[in-house]
């Protein structure tokens, strides 16, 4: 199929609009409201064209391209209409930077924008270098304005964290509103008022903080003007360089473009060229990366404790000192606690250092929920095969969310869920406390705290009543399972969960409709004394439904999946090959320290509670910021962060991402793999001679099946049934809500705006509360 635009014949695809077809063939049609990720809106009217056999001037953005259509885009009347419309738009938008006759000369002299609160003049706009209105004006040749500008005189909105708003620059293209509503599913902003008083605003004019805003920044990235601008990077102007990398703050690993200027990462923008994850970037990735990474407190030099004081030394000295010190301990006395933010390469080397060079099999991840889940899956032989992915979520027919706070731990995930819901998925929330996503769901059940096991057991029983499971009856575990179910009375379950019978059957009925479902579970199940029981009961449900996939644990830490893949998990070598020699896992290492079995530790992040490692004789700590553990460490090694090294990360669903270097590390800080190589070489180990992290990756790909292309085993069938627990409430252990962190440091500790946002949402205690608590304690003392 083809259409002709201004005499040029171009191909079209089924369902494309004229604008989309033109874009695919690199034909420019000016527009300000159309956006690749959004459906046609038709507000700016700049894309008007003439089409043979059609009346008037149809807009290219919403007119479907049909075979043989003849379109005139560069035609006298069309140009005139567009110019007239753009002149109208410019009446509402300060435009001295567009129509000034000295413009070209002026801009060659004045580089960056002038910092100004209110943007009225030519060089005050932070968006000047990337402004789309200027682009369109240039194309249409607007060089004068007969009608004077009408400055709206609206107050500046600068009281919210992360971004400023100056709606005097707004041209009401509606991209921000549509992004917020249609893509992010939040709807924090909308059009308010009407006629020329129309303005983008929040409900009742509240601040974004009080409103529904999740500060994902999608609105800013969509804005064609300088009306919305990020506080952190608005005055930096254009970046010197940029690399395609990822955000590593949570396990979704959204693709980001890291922008570098003056040797530092100054902004991280969602990578819009990547189909996957361009829409998912959240408050952490969009706004916190530069502020978090560029804090002046970053560690610059290796430190060794000499006479009780930490003093800076050279890397050679540090490596030698570590090598010499470790040799004093027996291999089984040395433990490795691995940060789930290391790259796959670094984790692979740590595994090599620990298991092959030193001979210690005491290696585990620093994590609670992720470690528990991955260990469980690895034991069941399900960790190595491909996991349920984000695409599965988007295409699911039903999604069940169990005990999670994904709005704060995985803010990108609700976007996928919104997309799924738009595609017709039924969203069910099963939670024992408030879930922010309740408005986005079709069914919500609030279960009594501690009754999740009973809920799952009752659900299992209902499913068993309605599904034939002849194949399962042959399993050994079936008799016990059946018996445990027979012991469960639905009325008891209703009583202890607080979920009505009809709610049970509604959920059960929905789950039975399709095998394209997803159960997501969050870290709040760790409040249960035996969380693996819950995983087992979820497995029961999926087994009965005959779903081999469909389980997503919301892993928290950035690369927990990757370091487990690379061998930093107890009992498994890289690629989930069983380790023949047994070692201690995290908890047994902690008890080992207390007993004196474990004496030396290599720790790669400072998030472990100090009391856990008290008693260890020698502690090597590699980290990026000073932490509470510093006072106990014998050696502190400054590590590079994800924007300062190259390597690979694996997201929660097993997708492998390239990490690319955007800036140099501060001082003499080194990437983790170089640190480990240095230690390894000093311990006399072979195979640490790498030129770059790429060499390590090649070695991994060559030697380990798991990392080869299509090297992962197929998803095994679910063939295990676990006896369900007795109905009733379990006593839960209180748990602090998870806060997003990197290498052990909570992001909000270094990003003031994030602290404000999390405080407002009660994710962290308020600062004044903390001081009040301290004061109260002092009084008691």
């Amino acid at each position, binding site marked *: 199929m083809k259409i002709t635009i201004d005499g040029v014949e171009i191909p079209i695809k089924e369902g494309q609009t004229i604008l989309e077809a033109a874009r695919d063939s690199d034909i420019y049609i000016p527009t300000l409201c159309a956006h690749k990720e959004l459906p046609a809106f038709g507000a700016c009217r700049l894309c008007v064209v003439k089409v043979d056999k059609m009346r008037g001037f149809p807009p290219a953005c919403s007119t479907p391209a049909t075979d043989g259509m003849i379109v005139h885009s560069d035609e006298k009347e069309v140009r005139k209409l567009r110019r007239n419309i753009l002149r109208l738009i410019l009446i509402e938008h300060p435009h001295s930077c567009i129509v000034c006759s000295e413009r070209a000369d002026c801009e060659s002299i004045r580089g960056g924008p002038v910092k100004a609160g209110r943007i009225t003049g030519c060089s005050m706009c932070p968006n000047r270098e990337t402004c789309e209105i200027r682009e369109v004006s240039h194309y249409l040749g607007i060089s004068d304005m007969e009608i004077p500008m009408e400055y709206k005189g609206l107050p500046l909105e600068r009281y919210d964290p992360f971004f400023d708003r100056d709606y005097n620059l707004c041209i009401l293209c509606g991209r921000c509103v549509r992004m917020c509503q249609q893509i992010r599913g939040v709807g924090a902003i909308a059009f308010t008022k009407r*006629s020329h008083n129309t303005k983008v605003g929040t409900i009742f004019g509240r601040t974004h903080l009080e409103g529904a805003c999740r500060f994902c920044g999608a609105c800013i990235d969509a804005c064609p003007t300088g009306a919305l601008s990020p506080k952190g990077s608005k005055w930096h102007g254009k970046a010197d360089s940029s690399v395609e990398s990822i955000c590593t703050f949570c396990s979704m690993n959204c693709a980001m473009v890291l922008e570098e200027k003056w040797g530092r990462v100054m902004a991280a923008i969602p990578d819009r060229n990547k189909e996957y994850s361009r829409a998912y970037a959240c408050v952490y990735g969009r706004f916190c990366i530069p502020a978090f990474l560029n804090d002046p407190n970053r560690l610059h030099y290796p430190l060794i404790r000499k006479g009780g004081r930490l003093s800076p030394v050279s890397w050679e000295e540090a490596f030698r000192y570590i090598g010499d010190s470790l040799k004093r301990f027996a291999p089984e006395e040395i433990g490795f606690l691995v940060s789930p933010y290391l790259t796959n390469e670094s984790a692979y080397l740590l595994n090599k250092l620990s298991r092959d060079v030193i001979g210690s099999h005491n290696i585990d991840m620093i994590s609670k929920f992720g470690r528990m889940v991955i260990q469980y899956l690895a034991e069941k032989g399900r960790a190595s095969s491909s996991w349920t992915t984000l695409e599965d979520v988007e295409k699911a027919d039903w999604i069940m969310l169990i005990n999670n706070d994904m709005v704060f731990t995985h803010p990108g995930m609700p976007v996928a869920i919104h997309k799924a819901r738009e595609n017709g998925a039924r969203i069910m929330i099963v939670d024992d406390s408030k879930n922010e996503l309740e408005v986005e769901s079709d069914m919500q059940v609030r279960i009594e705290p501690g009754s999740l096991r009973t809920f799952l057991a009752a659900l299992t029983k209902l499913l068993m009543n309605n599904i034939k499971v002849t194949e399962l009856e042959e399993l050994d575990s079936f008799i016990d399972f059946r018996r445990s179910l027979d012991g469960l009375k639905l009325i008891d379950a209703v009583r202890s969960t607080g979920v009505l019978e009809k709610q049970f059957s509604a959920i059960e009925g929905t789950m039975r409709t399709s095998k394209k479902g997803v159960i997501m579970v969050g870290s709040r199940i760790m409040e249960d004394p035996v969380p693996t029981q819950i995983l087992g009961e979820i497995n029961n449900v999926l087994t009965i439904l005959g779903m081999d996939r469909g389980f997503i644990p919301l892993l928290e830490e950035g690369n927990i999946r990757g370091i487990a893949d690379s061998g930093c998990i107890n009992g498994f070598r890289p690629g989930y090959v069983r380790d023949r020699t047994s070692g201690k896992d995290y908890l047994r290492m902690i008890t080992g320290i207390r007993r004196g079995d474990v004496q030396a530790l290599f720790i790669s992040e400072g998030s472990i509670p100090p009391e856990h490692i008290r008693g260890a004789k020698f502690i090597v700590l590699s980290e990026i910021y000073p932490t509470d553990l510093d006072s106990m460490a014998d050696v502190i090694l400054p590590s590079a962060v994800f924007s300062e090294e190259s390597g690979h990360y694996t997201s929660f669903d097993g997708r492998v991402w390239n990490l690319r270097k955007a800036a140099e590390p501060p001082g003499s800080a080194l990437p983790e793999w170089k640190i480990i190589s240095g230690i390894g070489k000093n311990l006399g180990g072979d195979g640490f001679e790498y030129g770059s992290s790429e060499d390590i990756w090649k070695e991994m790909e060559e030697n380990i099946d798991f990392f080869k292309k299509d090297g992962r085993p197929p998803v095994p069938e679910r063939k295990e049934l676990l006896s369900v627990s007795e109905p009733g409430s379990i006593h839960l252990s209180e748990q602090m809500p998870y806060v997003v962190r990197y290498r052990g440091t909570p992001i909000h500790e270094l990003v003031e705006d994030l602290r404000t946002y999390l405080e407002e949402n009660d994710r962290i205690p308020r600062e004044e509360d903390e001081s009040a608590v301290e004061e109260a304690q002092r009084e008691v003392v």
Partner: protein
Amino acid sequence: MSMTGIEEMRKISEQRWSDLKGAEKVAYIGAASCGHAAGIVKVIRAIDEFNEKNGLGIEKVEVGCLGMCSFEPMVYFQKNGKDPVVYGNLDGERIPTLLDGIFNKDHYPIEGLLGVLGEGYDDLPSIYDHPMMRPQRRIILENVGRIDPTNLEHYLANDGFKGLEKALKMDPQEVIDIVKGSELRGRGGAGFPTGMKWQFCRNAKGEKKYLICNADEGDPGAFMDRSVLEGDPFRLIEGMIIGAYAMGTQLGYIYVRKEYPLAIFRLHIAIRECREKGILGKDILGSEFDFDIEIMEGAGAFVCGEETALIASIMGKRGMPQPRPPFPAQKGLWGYPTNINNVKTLSTMPSIMRKGADWYSSIGTKGTRGTAVFALTGKLKNSGLVEIPMGTTLREIIFDIGGGMDEGKSFKAVQTGGPSGGCLPADALDYIVDFESLKDAGTIMGSGGMIVMDEDTCVVDVAHYFISFTQEESCGKCSPCRIGTKQMLDLLTKIKAGDGTRKELDELASLAWTIQNGSLCALGQTAPNPILTTLRYFMDEFREHVFEKKCRARVCKALIQYEINELKCIGCGACERRCPVKAISEKPVKVTTIKGSKNNIRVIDPGTCIRCGLCLETCPPSANAISKVSPIDRKDEKKQGGDGK
């Protein structure tokens, strides 16, 4: 209820109806919103009082409005089973003498008598011979003003639901074929062939389909839909069920503006009544066809009359138009195929189904069949709601039905189609009313508003008024409409203030073109029509404003002055006392009044005067000393005078 059920009910209804018609003493009360506004409540109270005092036993029946607005409040009295006699311009005080005359003395007082609602008798003329009624052909308004709108029996007795019964016996496609054959065009304004529209919706694939009745009538001066809703709601329901059956719709919405509380109230009653009797709901009249109607109240946005904005509004979203395609017939309410028709379109259906396509297509002109309902307002003698066959000339409507200009003024312009339409001058009065002809004239048929203006109206002011309306009602989505209408308004304000130049006139024309061709929805696309037509037909008046700084209708305040005629002023000082800005002062010229006292005459200081016109109102008619003048005329006169010397 089954078909036989309705037959039985119709029999009962007919019996009751004839009982009512044969009753001894009945007062039919015009109790639509217009009646209420004109003071019908006082009339009702007076009737009740008189009735009670004299024990007459008059039965009261509340009916809709006959469409003779200038004669409200109206009551028709029926005596001894004869056709009722219509009285207009009533007030509570006249009721006792009137009732006494009719029911006690067998004498119909002549004052306020309009005619017999039926054929004339005993020297009483038929109301259908009244100049306002004679040229009319009432199809949609057939029952309006004749029956109790909340009484299903009245509707049934007047051929109600006969069309539906007929339709339900047919194949849905046959129903659409009849509508196609009738050549009915949508009465919402655009005039799209209804049969075709229904066919689109019928052919569209979707597990659900919706039918929406657009009753969000928002044009200034238009009240056709309101009258139908208040006067004959069952008719609309019948039309909707026919449409739903033809298109295969399960649920219908009536989107009615909240400013019509009485219409909403009566619709609710009518829908409930229909549900109870099995005319709405499951298995309608035993046909195994299910359909129900919900009422959706609009929140006062003019733009919600636009299809896509209306759909968004029903879905709880901001009422903003969407680009088409997708058309509502493909993807409308909640994403399903949706058909939207105007109240009048749907209300025509019962008659078409009952009397057939050929009957309907025999009325009207070649391109536009049927009748047009107009809300005739403005500076006319007889304003009101009229239904005329298509093809009637504007002149007939204005001068025959409307009775010509009020107070002996001369005709200047007529505006049809509300803010989307245009102003036509006297030259255009011989244009006939149909979609094409009015389009040729530069205006549109619209949904039926017709505002007549006399010589005291300034066309620049009229254009300014309509643009200020559309400007305010623009949803703010697309730039040409949002910004362009504001610019046009500013230009017109400038011209009205006497600050216009040739540049402003040129800019007006250019803006009008941009908005017309660039806007997203019909609101924007038609917003410049009042300006385009006034520029076309009344350019000389614009030029006067711009080049001579003169407003010939003496409306634009910046271009007029108030003046006291020294020879006529009696020095009473009433104007001085009334003036809110103290612009009037005494002038040491004495004048002797009739009573003999000597007063100083008054003079207005044009610099202080704010042209509020209060002095003109206050000046005693006996003196009539104050007048509006164009300062420019004064100068001319002086100049001429000077030359003469």
